[in-house]
């Protein structure tokens, strides 16, 4: 070994040294050194690049879909029993409209899994697990990626594009609970099994048109779970226009029209003697929703300060037949049925202001108008208005304030106080303290 090295050195000395000694000036040497240094750097860079490349996950799991988990928990202090919650003046929706139970409780945990299926479709599944350990499919749909000319098709179960807030998941809402109008007209939040076709116009001003057809598996359709029939149980048409004002304000306004034909849509009430009864409605239900949203941030940079104004107006017409006490035995001439029609409306307006980074305050005003309700059985004198107490004229209101703190875009802690006058006979003072966090994939939020 030693010998070999020695020989090599000798050879190098005899061949190389004379050349160096002969010609190279100091300057050329320096240039050479610089070249060697640069080469060395390039080799190091290349090495680093190779290391980086090799660090990338290359396992089977690299193709796993994006997974995210929403956790939330709540402390509720309510002056009224949430089990007796009702919105007077409006047909009960059988939806999940009551406030959370008093005291500490776990909110819905939400597991979302999404990925591009292939070059044609994207798939999304969102499953919620209630604090009572029930799993439900909140959304599960496929969406086209490769249709051109501004068309997209969505199929499966998804939140209907009726109004604005209905399409947004509860964890991204600016208040703990839904507006009263959503509770009264959509059973808190309307999700249906269906197909949606949407078209976005090729104009600088945002404009879209869309249509949804669905099973009609929940309020305002009925019965619960949808009818046993071919075709569709509900239809929804919607359009939005949106754009920017100047260099800090973005706006969008939308109009939607939801039409369904409920058949034997039941709800619980009591009669004039206080005995529980089940009534049912069969007919047509048509809901118009006008919504508007405005978001402001200096130079569209929401980090330090931003403001959001949001409002929706709902108007519903229902007409058909109302059956009183469906359980009346046929022996005593069976349940009584008469005509029914109603025109009702409701709206809310809310503003949320982030005044310093991470802190937001918000105020919301809710109002429902029970409008006109004509009950055939009452008009004919067969029954009295006292037999339909929930439908008695009443205009519920609610005022809500909240403050929340978001140390990062993945966590939020919120304190909310509401004075809820949904019941005609009592005011519910509600205090909520809530956390919402999101783990995993970085989901983007809709405007």
């Amino acid at each position: 070994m030693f010998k070999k090295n020695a020989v090599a050195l000798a050879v190098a000395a005899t061949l190389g040294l004379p050349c160096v000694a002969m010609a190279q000036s100091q300057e050329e040497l320096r240039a050479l050194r610089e070249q060697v240094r640069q080469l060395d750097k390039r080799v190091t860079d290349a090495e680093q690049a190779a290391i980086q490349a090799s660090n990338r996950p290359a396992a089977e799991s690299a193709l796993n879909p994006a997974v995210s988990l929403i956790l939330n928990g709540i402390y509720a202090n309510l002056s009224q029993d949430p089990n007796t919650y009702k919105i007077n003046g409006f047909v009960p929706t059988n939806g999940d409209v009551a406030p959370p139970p008093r005291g500490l409780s776990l909110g819905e945990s939400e597991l979302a899994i999404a990925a591009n299926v292939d070059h044609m479709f994207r798939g999304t599944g969102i499953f919620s697990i209630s604090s009572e350990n029930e799993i439900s499919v909140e959304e599960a749909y496929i969406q086209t990626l490769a249709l051109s000319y501004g068309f997209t098709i969505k199929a499966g179960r998804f939140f209907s594009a009726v109004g604005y807030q209905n399409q947004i998941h509860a964890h991204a809402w600016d208040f703990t609970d839904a507006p009263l109008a959503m509770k009264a007209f959509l059973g808190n939040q309307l999700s249906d099994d269906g197909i949606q076709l949407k078209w976005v116009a090729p104009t600088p001003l945002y404009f879209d048109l869309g249509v949804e057809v669905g099973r009609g598996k929940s309020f305002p359709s009925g019965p619960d779970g949808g009818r046993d029939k071919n075709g569709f149980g509900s239809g929804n048409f919607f359009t939005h226009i949106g754009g920017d004002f100047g260099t800090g304000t973005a706006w969008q306004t939308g109009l939607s029209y939801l039409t369904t034909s409920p058949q034997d849509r039941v709800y619980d009430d009591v009669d004039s003697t206080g005995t529980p009864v089940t009534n049912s409605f069969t007919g047509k239900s048509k809901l118009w929703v006008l919504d508007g949203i405005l978001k402001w941030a200096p130079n569209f940079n929401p980090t330090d300060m931003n403001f959001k104004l949001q409002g929706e107006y709902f108007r519903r017409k229902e007409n058909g037949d109302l059956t009183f006490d469906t359980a009346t035995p046929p022996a005593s001439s069976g349940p009584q049925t008469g005509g029914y029609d109603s025109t009702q409306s409701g709206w809310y307006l809310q503003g949320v202001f982030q005044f310093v980074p991470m802190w937001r305050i918000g105020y919301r005003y809710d109002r429902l108008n029970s409008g006109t309700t004509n009950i055939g059985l009452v008009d004919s004198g067969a029954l009295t208005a006292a037999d339909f107490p929930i439908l008695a004229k009443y205009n519920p209101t609610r005022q809500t304030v909240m403050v929340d703190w978001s140390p990062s875009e993945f966590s939020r802690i919120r304190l909310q106080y509401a004075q809820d006058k949904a019941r005609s006979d009592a005011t519910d003072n509600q205090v909520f303290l809530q956390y919402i966090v999101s783990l995993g994939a970085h989901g983007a939020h809709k405007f």
Partner: protein
Amino acid sequence: MKTILRFAAALSSVVIALPAAAALNVFACEPEWGALAQELGGDKVSVYAATTALQDPHRIEARPSLIARIRTADLLICSGSELEIGWIPLLLTQSGNDKVQLGSPGYFEASQYVIKLEVPKVIDRALGDLHPGGNPHVHTDPRNIAKIAAALEDRLIQIDPANADTYRSRSKSFLERWQAAIARWEKEAAPLKGVPIVVYHRDFSYFINWAGMRQAGSLEPKPGILPTPSHLAELIDQMKRSPAKVVVYSPYNSPQAAEFLSSRANIPTVMMPFTVGGTEKAKDLFGLFDDTIGRLLATVK
């Protein structure tokens, strides 16, 4: 319902009848890519920059106006490496435009064509808002701009072969001027070698690497987490022991934290242009680097 349908049909026929613009519609996620597309495309492209230097590209609302612009785009140019993950995927699914979806020729991610720095070895949200693919702010190294320009030239030719000659000649001319400018900037930036610098966010890493500067700290305690008083106090202590020469921030950052550190630790602070349009002088890519180097030299001297 019939009226709605009739209205819809009438409206769509009007909209469809609008003449299509002749130029290639480019949607640039950040102003630097808009400027680059303009350099290479000239009048063959119509560039829309989705953001300005005053906006944090990490935090952009998926506004209706942006969906409308992506709807008609032929080419989308973004930094990539998950910089735009909070808004671009949503805009893409909403737009119904197949030309610019991931995997289509019209989808161009600039950071794919350069070696990325700061690829995290451990990914955990407790470490801040990390980009698993590495630091996405690749445009702050002028050599990266050259590499990306070459890749973008190929892409433009692929999408719009009819104007290939224009793209080739404009790209050649740009790269010649750019290489000459890099040579000049290298000389100018020589005094910055080894200079310790405090950044707001790690958005100058590529520049620091190119100029041979030394990153001595960041105002953000962790990437994407806004400066906190306790972290700033730590940083002030650290600056007392081994002072940095300059504190920099971007136009979209609030200057308060930088000024606080600057006044306590007696280190000058500079707002860097960060991207095209960030300062008066940063009118184009050349101006961006002229001004970046100029501002640093003026402070460090």
